[in-house]
């Protein structure tokens, strides 16, 4: 009897389960379709195109295998692209995160005046970078720009003891945007100037979640200096925020484009010294209509960003979660 009952139940059971599963798939279908259409398909298309020599408007294309990727790792243009991109990321990320944290701690320790600083530091974030780049271009103009004019005022004073001023006064101050030794650093500077306010706001949000009583506990436990309190309470509490800020900053740094497009619309800085990845994608894929190589750079770009995101996930789950 029991065996018969069991088998009957066994046949009858899957029906509602199946129906539930089907309903489930039906309900997620719109979201799934959208995700596939606007996120996954373009990535797959780009991945496929990166193995071809396709150009927009051509009736067909040829498979070229890994030729595009091979070029990326052999041609000197792309070597410059990697150098420029990594210089930018390695400079801008730590400095803008550090400045953001420092500014957040200082602003947090102030009372009402803090709000004024918050607004001031956040202004560059709100401004359009393209417009700001034009303003910087004027300021950095080698002869009539504000920066070099200000520097020239130091000529004839004790400042000339410094080698930079001695050189500048004798042979003229740097061309900034026109000098291949300075170009990428100027871009880095503007990136930091523009980005740290955003990091500061994120850190400020993180700081509000630090329990005040923990500082009192730290004081009772004998943490005398601000540095000790920071290490014992603030820094660990900001762990999750820091991971997020660093990841966001990295991704934003990899994406730098508008400054370079505004300064050097014709080709990534003097001697391609500021030829960053995003600009390379734009130049190859759009301006020169070399979709294949453009897609290859895009895939590489995606790989970097994916890698960063994975590191972030790993850190969030392992180290900073409590």
């Amino acid at each position, binding site marked *: 009897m029991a065996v018969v009952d069991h088998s009957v139940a066994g046949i009858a059971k899957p029906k509602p389960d199946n129906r539930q599963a089907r309903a489930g798939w039906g309900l997620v279908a719109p979201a799934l379709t959208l995700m596939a259409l606007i996120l996954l398909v373009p990535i797959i298309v780009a991945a496929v195109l990166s193995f071809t020599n396709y150009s927009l408007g051509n009736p067909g294309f040829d498979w070229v295998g890994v030729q595009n990727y091979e070029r990326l790792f052999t041609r000197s243009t792309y070597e410059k692209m990697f150098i420029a991109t990594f210089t930018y990321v390695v400079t801008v990320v730590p400095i803008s995160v550090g400045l953001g944290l420092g500014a957040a701690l200082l602003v947090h320790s102030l009372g009402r005046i803090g709000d004024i600083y918050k607004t001031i530091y956040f202004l560059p974030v709100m401004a359009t970078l393209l417009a700001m780049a034009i303003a910087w271009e004027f300021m950095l103009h080698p002869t009539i720009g504000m920066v070099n004019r200000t520097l020239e005022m130091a000529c004839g004073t004790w400042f000339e003891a410094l080698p930079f001023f001695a050189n500048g006064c004798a042979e003229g101050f740097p061309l900034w945007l026109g000098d291949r030794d300075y170009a990428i650093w100027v871009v880095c500077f503007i990136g930091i100037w523009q980005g740290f306010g955003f990091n500061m706001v994120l850190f400020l949000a993180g700081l509000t979640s630090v*329990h005040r*009583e*923990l500082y*009192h*506990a730290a*004081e*009772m*436990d*004998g*943490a*005398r200096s601000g540095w*000790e309190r920071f290490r*014992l*309470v603030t820094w*660990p*509490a900001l*762990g999750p925020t820091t991971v997020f800020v660093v990841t966001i900053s990295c991704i934003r740094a990899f994406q730098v484009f508008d400054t370079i497009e505004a300064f050097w619309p014709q080709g990534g800085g003097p001697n391609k010294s500021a030829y960053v990845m995003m600009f390379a994608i734009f130049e190859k894929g759009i301006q020169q209509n070399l979709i294949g190589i453009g897609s290859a750079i895009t895939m590489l770009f995606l790989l970097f960003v994916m890698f960063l995101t994975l590191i972030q996930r790993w850190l969030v789950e392992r180290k*900073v979660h*409590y």
Partner: protein
Amino acid sequence: MSDLQITSVTKDFGETSVLKGVTLDVKDGEFISLVGPSGCGKSTLLRIIAGLETPTSGNISIGGKDVTQLRAADRNLSMVFQSYALYPHLTVAENIAVPLQMRQMTALQRLPVLGTVMPGARIQKQDIAEAVRNAAEMLEIGTLLDRKPGQLSGGQRQRVALGRALVRDPAAFLLDEPLSNLDAKLRVQTRAEIAELHRRLKATFIYVTHDQVEAMTMSDRIAVMMGGEILQCAAPDVIYEDPDDIRVAEFIGSPKINILPVERNGTELTVFDQVLSSHFYGDSPKVMQLGLRPEALRLTQSAPLLTGRVVHFENLGSEVFAQVALDSDGSRVTLRAMPAQRQSLGLGAQVGLTFDLSAAMIFDAEGARLRRVELAATRAPEVA
């Protein structure tokens, strides 16, 4: 271990004055409770003792040394916070070790990697680990040492916070409502454990609470605070049986003390026109207040001083509390009775109440205790 003096400490926050001149001497090894309703300034006083808050005026001294200008980290006091304030990223063992690391190791020895190769760091670390193990054993949290605070229950966190406080040897322990986040059962258990800990350590404990039961059961002395002042500081039984002020009498004791109006007409003391004493020759104001603990009231059939109807009834098993609405003015008094008297206390039942004048406390209209009036009133019949 040393005694602690608080001398006329005041604290103003802008316009509002939170402490209005508090003076308190705490003897070495004493367990003293600061108790009062919320907003009475008890937590502020504790934070001033700790050094987390500076007093507007007045002095704090520990072991005869003035520490008013000393910062909290240099006062050698331990504190247990209401929220426990454990470092969430450190394990239980690391949490307990923090006060020792901060005080015994140099900044260089505390560095994450470099610290381990600093001279003396290894021995220091072993000593600290040993002290942490001892503290954990005393509190029976030895098995939790590797967990993070996030993985602990409220009671366990509370023990870790205690462990962090007692791992070093402070001049006094300050506890800020440490039991208020625990459930009722755990609270009773932890209460006993803290009292036992105090007996074992023989250390000075200053314990802030709004719960009079905690204060009554654990302390050597209770300081009842209200409106930024200490109204009375005495042993628990004195506070209960012999309060100086009507506010102390009303705050301590559950159910609350009954207050009845007393009048003096010539040589007669009356409550609702019932004569309490007809030969009163003492000197007293005309209008006074009479305080009667629920256990001072008795049920009676013959010549009751007060009559009323039972309006509420609580049976606690071992004893019974009845609220009686008085016929004279409708005010309610609470009566404690034995379970055997339950039948006569049914809802709506008409009852007669009486009491001994010697069990009553008399206060003036402002609430100050009138001990001389009590003495005169109780002695009067013998004289006559």
